[in-house]
């Protein structure tokens, strides 16, 4: 059985490695020091289980998981316990708080071994990027590269079938998410859902024009024009206090 350990602290990886020696059937195929490496290794080796730290360079553990199509089973290892609830929302197999004992570790592995006989159905990771302190950016895949978009650089979001198109000065990026997910997570950042298909960065609005009887248009300082629905207009009025 293939396993990958992802943690930015070498000693934290070594203790997982040491505890895993007990399991003859487990084969550690890679050890990674950050989310980028971790993602590559997962795509390459397709492990059954990963041990994942949350706080890591560049992209955190949750953000890394978001970028993977069919993520493996995950046991989180971290010193932050405010992440625990989130980890279980992600259907993590278990959550180990550092420093953890061998007994606790074995319990987590056993939990995985017991559940893995049943084909695990991974739910859509809806709330992943909302780890505390990390809500101010969105991580997307841009071809083979990973792009980190600070939220304040987003002009607007547009619905595109199963994806959401993120429009920035540097171009457009697709992310497999729902509009309502972004409506919720970006609500704190001056973003408003003005239409079934649009969420706009209100900081960039320069004008609001009447379009048809019940609808309006917003003009952004980037030149973009977006349609505003009736309910969107009233939300916009609330936020902009007009």
């Amino acid at each position, binding site marked *: 059985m293939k396993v990958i350990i992802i943690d*930015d*602290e*070498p*000693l*934290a990886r*070594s*203790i997982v490695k*040491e505890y895993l020696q007990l399991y003859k059937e487990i084969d550690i195929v890679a050890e990674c*020091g*950050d989310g*980028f*490496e971790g993602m590559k290794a997962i795509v390459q080796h397709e492990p059954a289980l990963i041990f994942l730290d949350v*706080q*890591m*360079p*560049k992209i955190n553990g949750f953000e890394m998981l978001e970028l993977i199509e069919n993520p493996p089973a995950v046991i989180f290892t971290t*010193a*932050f316990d405010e992440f625990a609830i989130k980890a279980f929302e992600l259907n993590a197999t278990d959550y180990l*708080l*550092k*420093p*953890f004992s061998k007994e606790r570790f074995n319990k987590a592995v056993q939990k995985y071994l017991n559940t893995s006989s049943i084909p695990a159905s991974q739910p859509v990771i809806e709330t992943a990027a909302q780890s505390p302190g990390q809500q*101010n*950016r969105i991580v997307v895949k841009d071809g083979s590269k990973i792009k*980190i978009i*600070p939220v*304040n650089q987003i002009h607007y979001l547009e619905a595109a079938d199963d994806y959401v198109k993120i429009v920035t000065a540097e171009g457009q990026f697709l992310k497999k998410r729902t509009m309502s997910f972004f409506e919720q997570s970006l609500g704190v950042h001056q973003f408003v859902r003005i239409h079934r298909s649009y969420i706009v960065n209100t900081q960039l609005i320069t004008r609001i024009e009447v379009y048809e009887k019940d609808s309006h248009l917003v003009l952004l300082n980037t030149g973009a024009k977006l349609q505003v629905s009736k309910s969107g207009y009233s939300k916009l009025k609330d936020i902009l206090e007009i």
Partner: protein
Amino acid sequence: MNTPFTARKNLVIAGIVYWAIISIVYSIILTGTLKNFSLTTAQVIIDTIISNILVTASCVLILNNMRYYLPRQEKYWYVLTVSLGLSGICFLIAKGVLWIIFNDDPHYLQSFSQSTGIRYGISFLLIGCFSMMSLLWYTQEEQKTMSERKADAERLAKDAELFKLRQQLQPHFLFNSLNSISALTGTQPEKARHMIQQLSDFLRGTLKKDDQQWSTLEEEIQYLRLYLDIEKVRFGHRLQTEIIYTDEVLLLKLPSLLLQPVVENAIKFGLYDTTGEILIKLEATKENNYLKIMVQNPFDPETSQPLKGTGFGLSSIQRRLFLLFARQDLLKTHKNQANFITVILIPQIK
């Protein structure tokens, strides 16, 4: 608990009830008294209404006045004087108005003069009672808000204290260090023991000093080295540090435990924003009458957030410097191509 607004509403209701009662009492007394002078019913009613409106106006005046000015010393004398004055004014106005209305009835005017004492006495009693009531009410209200404010202040102080304690313990750093020690005990017990030693010294340093104290740069650097050594065990080869200073700055003074959080911030920023090896550089120099400390960490200009202000880690340092020196310009940050630089100036007070 009542908010000031609803409390005031209660007071107004109480005032209205009081007013209704005194009106009735006043009317009865006045009617009874004036009957003896055999006045017409119309005259009694008009007289009662006018006298009552004046007393009520005086009560409203007192109520509003005490809202803005509550006497603290000699308050009973205040109530007495105000009541005497106001009832005098009420009496004079009532007299003026009633004399204009009934100036063609000499019998009424005579009765009025004869009832002067009783009129004045009743007004005085009613107004006096009402002022006493308002005074007690407002005093009680004031005490209530004062004790609320005191409780608020105490709660805030406690929160701040707790926050400080939590900061001192640095749970994230502590748990990760303990995890590293746990890993070392299996493979390199000697190293584990050494790290326990360092961690203990570091924690002792945190507990020993309080942030009102001053240390020499030498002490602070020693303490910083402990911290850096632990971080180096955690992050391995990724973390490189360089501390540059000359002998002349070692004895300069700075607030205790000021450097470590600045460096911690630099390490966090450097380590989590890049994936390669990072160099954290600290340089201490003397400039005019200041100890100048520069801390530098690499960052990735492509993915890094455009920094607003100084970031959370540094804002508490800025706050501390402000509390100590009353200056906002002692901590500054800037960045060049690949490095983020924090500069702190510490005035040297002789």
